[in-house]
């Protein structure tokens, strides 16, 4: 493939240089995080390792240009697509298939599928009686949502104030870890001695230790299925207000599959945030598979996002078409990994509603706090309780 263009192994011709450097751009277009230095490093690496052997080139570029595990898994396919002629690709497509199957081995089939083609996952599961029986259905909706409401001026100010207050209160929560502090109760002996050196060993300036204040990390999992549609936008606006106030917030929406909307919500340009959400929102107001989505979250993001300081907030009405056992299992796993698990149910305040749907019943044993929250007023009432729980 490449050999035809090479005359001497060491020096690369201009054509070949362009072709190789173009690979960095190709990866970038495919969502790889390759910086401007990537193309330079690529040329340098190929000069060092030689390019006559495609296998060597593949392995060295893989080490050089990948930065995280999902890139690592996708690399081989992209390498083949860029460098190999189409008639050679079948062999490698088998490889990719095998890798994907391996990925799925830990989970249940369907998870990966929904990642590749958002919105089609439900079609495969194809449930005919998907008519929204008591709010929940297994159908994935292909419709995207209208996000104009996201930037509604009404309430925006109140919401921001509320979230700012919430963020400020979160800051008061403390950790056991200690850090240097300008005053406090415990003497930092090491630092005191260090400062005393300049005074000939007399400790004139004392240093103190105090428990460090670190806000808990928040993970928001918002149900945007059809039964939740009256509240979805409200919660998205709330999440957006929170994302702009706090740094360590991660936001996901779920219906029949899980989507990360954190970076889109945090976009400082409100109109661009709107556009990006529009693209992400395929499947909005479709069916609900809470258990599967929470399991996917735990599998794909759990290790990265959950630690002993994480508060997980699930917003859902609990109308689930999946297996209650799976929901209970996923929640238990989430609960074990995080600090607290809060479930906000917008229906809770409605007269005559009791959390007795199958999903809610399965979830109850694993929740630290079940709270209502259908509008701003009720959220305001609930916030102190959430803070108390996170403490």
């Amino acid at each position, binding site marked *: 493939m490449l050999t035809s263009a090479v005359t001497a192994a060491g020096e690369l011709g201009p054509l070949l240089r362009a072709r190789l450097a173009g690979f960095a751009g190709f990866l970038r277009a495919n969502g790889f995080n390759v910086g401007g230095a990537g193309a330079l490093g690529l040329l340098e690496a190929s000069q060092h390792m030689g390019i006559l052997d495609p*296998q060597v080139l593949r392995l060295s570029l893989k080490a050089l240009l990948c930065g995280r595990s999902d890139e690592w898994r996708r690399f081989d396919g992209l390498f083949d697509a860029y460098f190999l002629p189409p008639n050679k690709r079948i062999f490698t497509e088998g490889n990719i298939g095998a890798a994907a199957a391996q990925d799925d081995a830990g989970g249940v089939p369907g998870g990966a599928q929904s990642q590749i083609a958002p919105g089609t996952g439900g079609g495969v599961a194809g449930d005919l009686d998907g008519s929204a029986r008591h709010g929940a259905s297994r159908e994935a909706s292909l419709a995207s949502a209208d996000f104009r409401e996201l930037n509604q001026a009404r309430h925006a100010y109140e919401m921001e104030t509320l979230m700012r207050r919430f963020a400020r209160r979160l800051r008061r929560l403390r950790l056991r870890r200690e850090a240097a502090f300008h005053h406090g109760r415990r003497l930092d002996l090491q630092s005191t001695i*260090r400062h005393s050196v300049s005074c000939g060993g007399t400790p004139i300036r004392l240093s103190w230790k105090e428990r460090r204040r670190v806000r808990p990390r928040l993970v928001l999992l918002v149900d945007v299925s059809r039964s939740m549609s009256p509240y979805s936008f409200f919660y998205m606006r709330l999440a957006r207000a929170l994302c702009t106030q706090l740094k360590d917030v991660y936001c996901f929406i779920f219906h029949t599959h899980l989507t990360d909307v954190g970076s889109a919500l945090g976009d400082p340009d409100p109109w661009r945030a709107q556009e990006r959400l529009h693209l992400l929102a395929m499947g909005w107001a479709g069916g609900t598979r809470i258990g599967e989505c929470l399991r996917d979250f735990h599998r794909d993001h759990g290790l990265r996002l959950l630690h002993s300081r994480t508060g997980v907030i699930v917003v859902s009405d609990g109308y689930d078409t999946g297996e209650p056992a799976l929901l209970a299992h996923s929640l238990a796993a989430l609960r074990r990994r995080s600090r607290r698990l809060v479930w906000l149910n917008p229906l809770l305040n409605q007269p005559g509603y009791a959390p007795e749907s199958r999903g809610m019943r399965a979830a109850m044993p694993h929740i630290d706090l079940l709270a209502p929250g259908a509008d701003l007023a009720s959220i305001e009432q609930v916030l102190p309780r959430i803070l108390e729980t996170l403490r």
Partner: protein
Amino acid sequence: MPEIVDLQRRLEAVGYVAESSLAAALLLMVKLDRPLLVEGDAGVGKTEIAKSLAAVRGARLIRLQCYEGLDVHAAMYEWNYQRQLLAIKLLEHDERPTAVKEQDIFSERYLLKRPLLEAISCAEPPVLLIDEVDRADEAFEAYLLELLSDFQISIPELGTVRAVTKPLVVITSNGTRELSDALRRRCLYQYIDYPAFEKELAIVEIRLPQAGAQLARQVVDFVQSVRRMDLQKRPGIAETLDWTAALLRMGISTVDDDAAERILETLSALIKTRDDRAGFTREVVARIAAAC
């Protein structure tokens, strides 16, 4: 390719079975002078890479274990305050001018070298292992980036210490925290997955030759089926080796359904959480063992 195969063979000689992608990355790491970032689940042999690399090159291994709250003093350098104070007392009646005394107190004799300073002041290039970098906080990661780009550490009282030789840096991460893009971009990357059957068999045979071909094959088969189960904590290679050693110690020479009772007793070497352990009843073990 011959270079890569040669390195694989040398790694195997020191007891590490490396895939060609890893060998290529290690070669590239030496040629491009870049650190290598290794990610993967716990127990797949990330730390072992640095140890084997040091053994192959006959270099010193310097290890920095990261933890939450790790700061510059614990990672780079610290002054030996106690000795300094003592020296100040001793120098009180010294006739030399103050500037000279001060220079003496802040000389290298009173400097405690921590791993990072140690690594850049070696005469021969060592292998520097920065283990579980995701446990340290972001601030430390920024320090690390500075070190990895310039290979120099500035000590206010002493001046800048430049690297005599550049160490080979291996960074491992378990993915408990998202690393910064800047760090990822500066490093070569390697993701280590759970090994396939052949690779794991080769590892068991190299590390525990006394197990014998039949037991090794059965053990690996068993572990591979356990890994396919829905577990909280899937066993890594370290667990496979532990478990094989446990079987040998208990005098179990074949894994089959007759030995299920005794295998059950050794499973604590393989299954590490209570929930997972509860799933392994005698019947389950017998069924997996019979298939081996």
